[in-house]
């Protein structure tokens, strides 16, 4: 049985070849796309479970492709790039990517990232719902309603929110959050949290610059505040 369907988007044929050989060897079903445009065409047809997206491609680049994918779906996206700067990572996460892997990478690392992106915590863990005057979260049906509007969260944003709500009132460290949401191999990527928390605030806070639900604990982590405390 297939462990999932992965769309590999890279302009370099050798990279596509080696990815296909390896991922198929690990029970994934692999489809390929040469360009961002190609990927956007194949995604609705093939309905992959995950996209591995090269950042630097001719034509429509990885970031633009990622934004376009995000506009239409919650599918997990991992950006692959030769650049290693924090700025590039933040740009990729800002474009809606769930994760960022620097080329060259070992296949173990990539497989771990793929597993992390595909993994969902079971709905039984954590609280069933959260209610306040302008925010309603139903963790069972994965629906969020903020300021009388339905809000769409990506899977990682949703997991992050769930973990924070489950530990409402207590500060959660960066490392703890990263390991809970992304997986045990994570912990040194505070920039991931910066980007994702920003996006969450934009979606659920009335004033993202002065958040009332998700507060920053300087140099430590984040804390979710229910309306009773606020």
């Amino acid at each position, binding site marked *: 049985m297939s462990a999932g369907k992965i769309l590999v988007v890279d302009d370099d044929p050798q*990279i596509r070849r080696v990815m296909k*050989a390896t991922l198929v060897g690990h029970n994934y079903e692999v489809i390929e796309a040469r360009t961002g445009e190609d990927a956007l065409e194949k995604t609705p047809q093939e309905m992959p479970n995950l996209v591995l997206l090269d950042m630097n491609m001719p034509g429509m680049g990885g970031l633009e492709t990622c934004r376009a994918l995000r506009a239409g779906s919650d599918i997990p996206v991992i950006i692959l790039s030769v650049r290693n700067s*924090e700025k590039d990572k933040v740009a990729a996460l800002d474009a809606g990517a769930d994760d960022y892997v620097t080329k060259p*990478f*070992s296949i173990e690392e990539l497989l771990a990232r793929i597993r992390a992106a595909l993994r969902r915590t079971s709905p039984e863990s954590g609280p069933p719902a959260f209610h306040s005057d302008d925010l309603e979260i139903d963790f069972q049906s994965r629906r969020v309603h903020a300021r009388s509007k339905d809000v769409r969260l990506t899977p990682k944003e949703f997991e992050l929110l769930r973990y924070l709500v489950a530990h409402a009132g207590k500060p959660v460290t960066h490392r703890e959050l990263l390991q809970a949401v992304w997986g045990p191999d994570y912990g040194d990527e*505070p920039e991931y949290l910066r980007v994702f928390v920003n996006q969450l605030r934009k979606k659920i806070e009335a004033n993202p610059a002065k958040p009332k639900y998700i507060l920053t604990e300087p140099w430590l982590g984040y804390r979710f505040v229910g309306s009773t405390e606020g």
Partner: protein
Amino acid sequence: MKALRFGLSVLLVAAVLALYRAVHVNNTTVALSLLLAILGISAWWGLAEATVASVAAVLGFNYWFLPPVGTLTIQDPQNWVALLVFLATAVTASQLSERGRRRAAEAEARRTEIERLYALVQSMMFSGNARKTIREFVHTVVRVFGCRAAALYYRSTEEFFRSGPESNVVTDHELLAEAEIEDVSVDSGREVALGPVRLGLRPLGSMALIGRLPSEQMVRAIVNLIALTIERARALEEASHAEAARQGEVLKSALLDSLAHDIKTPLTSIKAAVTSLLSSSDHSERELLTIINEETDRLNRLAAEVIEMARIEAGKLHLEKRPVAVAELISGALADLAPAIQNRPVKVRVPDGLPAAEADHDFAMQVVKHFVENAVKYTPEGSPIDVSAELKSGKIVIGVTDRGPGIEENERVRIFDKFYRGRRHRFDTKGTGMGLAIAKGIVEAHGERIWVESEPGQGSAFYFSLAASPGGRHT
């Protein structure tokens, strides 16, 4: 034309006389009417016509109106007065109107010249090439001002620009001499106007106009115009050189980026393939695959360092400074180096309450990494490494101390040079020899200091400083 005007003048006088012969009025009215006619003639046409009319008027008035009527004798001396009045009026009025007409003609001439100057300005090619502009100018000035020829000496290239062979009336030597002179000279006999082309006090060259000459003022205006035009063309020329240089830099940076991409793409395939094989290999293959994997990493590091060094040397490091927690900087660097330092006791000392550093996070972390890597490379297996940070006279100083062999004094300066390796390690193949040079480039781009302290036999300590962030006092 002139004869016609004389005829018409006499006719006008005759008409007045004839009118009053038919209509009887007193003599004063006749005289005043004649005076009016003369005034008109002198104002419209001039003194000569008015004089002829005056004489005709006196003769006619005398013959037909003054007693004894029908003769040309003057009994009464008041007739002489009438004649004198007519003549005086004719002279005065004609002179006044003549002066007016001359003024109008002068104004008209000046207007034409200004129009031409304007036309000259408009038809000038404002290109970013001084020589091309001058060549264009020499022809344009001849066309617009209707001169026979023009010549211009351009001092900065020592060239003579001439509109054609007619301009040889003025020699090169004359133009050279004129460039040193203060003011313009117009020689209407030779039909040559010469003027120095200057911008303020700076001589740019000289110019000559030959043939129909504009006024001296206009020559001055023309040389000023060409001076400004040359200067503008020169400024444009320089700006376009600067732009070309800037584009060169942009290109270099783009080239480095694409080089990074092109080297890393095949490495990505190799690394993915070999790590995939490693995960499913049996013992006999494992050793060989491990070598491929490690060497791939080494090649990747090498490429990254070469590109980084090139970027530093091209002045292409884009720092994004923000407050950075020093403890996080050090732990991040050590996490990245985890495999290399697994057999090393590493002690980290960061005092509580140390302010955040104002630095580019990634680059500052790289400096720490290069220091630690350097310590790992040049000290015996298993020997301890200390990483510390402290606030010293307003600066945050981060240091990495080892218990290695130390560095001799004469080598301490050169250790930050590109490709320099300590004498003892010359034939050591580890690393690129660029780590400390890159660290130095990064620290200097921050405007900070990097140095080494060492006691041969005891160990070395590498330090760099960072500005303390004015904001936070967190670690």
